[in-house]
């Protein structure tokens, strides 16, 4: 076993970005993710990379767009209000089929809200907070190790599918420290980036754009994007199942909530309740099949989120017709993180 480091979730993301070959970072400070730019402002210069603290989140996402158009691996990070500001840029990147990793260590809202852990940006992330009906890859780590591993995966998926990829975390997974094995970047076969701008030289002109004005052109483009999303969905959905084999009630939860729920499930098992966990790791593509398959047998789902009900819609859209989907949500804010004890109670209530 390689050495286990002891690392903060946010720093794990920064470390993984470097391991994944990312040398360009553009960001604007915001709690609770500032550890990421702080780490990279120290490390990137040593690696001949570029760290820019931009004038805003909007500038950051557009610097990312520019850097990504040249073919390099690049990243930005922010938290909820800042991510809202990036929505136009994300839509442009999706439209121009640009890879690029966006980290949202989300906080509680709406508006200025607070800085506590929240999952209320689920819809924004997976349904497209920006205009025009696109999708981006959305990964939801629930441990420091996953903060690291999924960041590397985000870079790979972004390059493989030529689309932005988001890490959606919160202050629980961002601020906590856990043992980390700093895995090497996976050996992924990546497509050649034959679309990047580089100065045409004696070759063909290349244009990175999302404007399509010819008759039928934009529709065809959108249909191609849609096909890509379907492919992504078929190939890349990831999830974790825990004690589902004999479960009579399965908890659906992602990220930090899934961690809290896990303890509650262990407690329930100790009390003899057959409870399991289905944790989506990719929020987009959503693991629909996993829910469909599971609910062919287990008909009771308890969806738990740090919001007033968002992922639960995707769960409902995925389960077997005769499955019951219950919801328990804690909208976020100071002092509002649910405890395992509290979730155990909910489990018992719906068991």
């Amino acid at each position: 076993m390689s050495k286990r480091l002891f690392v903060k979730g946010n720093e794990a993301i920064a470390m993984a970005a470097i391991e994944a070959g990312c040398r360009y970072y553009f960001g604007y400070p915001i709690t609770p993710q500032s550890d990421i730019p702080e780490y990279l402002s120290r490390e990137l210069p040593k690696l001949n990379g570029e760290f820019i603290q931009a004038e805003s989140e909007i500038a950051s996402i557009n610097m990312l767009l520019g850097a990504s158009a040249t073919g390099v691996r690049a990243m930005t990070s922010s938290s909820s209000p800042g991510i809202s500001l990036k929505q136009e840029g994300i839509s442009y990147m999706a439209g121009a089929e640009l890879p690029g990793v966006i980290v949202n260590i989300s906080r509680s809202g709406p508006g200025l809200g607070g800085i506590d852990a929240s999952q209320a940006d689920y819809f924004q992330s997976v349904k497209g907070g920006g205009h025009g009906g696109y999708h981006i890859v959305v990964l939801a780590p629930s441990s420091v190790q996953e903060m690291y591993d999924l960041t590397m995966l985000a870079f790979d998926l972004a390059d493989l599918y030529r689309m932005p990829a988001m890490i959606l975390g919160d202050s629980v997974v961002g601020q906590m420290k856990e043992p980390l094995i700093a895995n090497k970047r996976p050996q992924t076969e990546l497509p050649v980036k034959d679309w990047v701008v580089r100065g045409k030289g004696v070759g063909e002109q290349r244009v990175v754009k999302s404007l399509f004005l010819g008759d039928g052109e934009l529709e065809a483009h959108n249909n191609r994007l849609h096909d890509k999303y379907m492919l992504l969905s078929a190939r890349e959905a990831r999830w974790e199942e825990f004690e589902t084999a004999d479960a009579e009630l399965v908890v659906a939860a992602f990220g930090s909530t899934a961690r809290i729920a896990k303890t509650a499930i262990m407690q329930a098992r100790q009390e003899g309740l057959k409870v399991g966990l289905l944790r989506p790791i990719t929020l987009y593509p959503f693991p629909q099949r996993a829910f469909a398959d599971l609910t062919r047998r287990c008909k009771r789902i308890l969806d738990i989120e740090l919001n007033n009900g968002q992922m639960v819609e995707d769960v409902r859209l995925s389960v077997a017709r005769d499955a019951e989907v219950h919801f328990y949500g804690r909208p976020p804010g100071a002092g509002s993180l649910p405890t395992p004890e509290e979730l155990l109670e909910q489990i018992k209530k719906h068991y």
Partner: protein
Amino acid sequence: MQQVFKRPVSLKDVQTHFCPGCHHGTIHRLVAEAMDEFGVQQRTIGVASVGCSVFLYGYFDIDVVEAPHGRAPAVATGVKRARPDSFVFTYQGDGDLAAIGTAEIIHAANRGEDITVIFVNNTTYGMTGGQMAPTTLVGQKTSTSPYGRNQAKDGAPIRMAELLTQLEGVAFAARVAVNNPRNLLDAKKQIKRAFRYQVEGKGFSFIEALSACPTNWGMNPIAANERVGGEMADYFKLGVYKDTAEF
């Protein structure tokens, strides 16, 4: 006979979508000539903005990245930092650069990004149908200032060349016009000088080009052209505002 005027190599041989008498065409050509002069076409990455010049890639035979409205300087920053060996310029209208993109141009300029910015000031939003721009002259009627720009409510037209000159990161800034041969030949000179800054790695260079928009000014091309040299140049004084390098 010798050909004394020809189409620059960097400019594609196609019809543009610009209206008759629109100076965008002229400014495009001057930029292409500068590209030819410095031999940078093959390593140029142009950053197109949103406005009448959005089809940059249709006219320049170079690689192009399209930026969201106003964000070209940020996109160019990303491009240039990732590919410092490329020649990077943005081409932006006055709505794009002086309104929605104010923060991006100021900070790219302040950082002294090694890029060239071509700023086309036609005192209106051309592409969207002639609304008031930050550069619209006081009293000028536009589709959103039907009673004329009112300085008390709308403020005075903003002078970007002068404003940017204040920033240390700006190495070169000039305002030019292409409304008559004399101004045009000077414009050509200043655009080349701006390019030279980048070619020699001397920092951020900025050209503000006054431009006619006959369509949205509701004028014929000749009258529009005259307005450029008249009330426009009276308010937006032509000249070199900053020139920090010795070549």
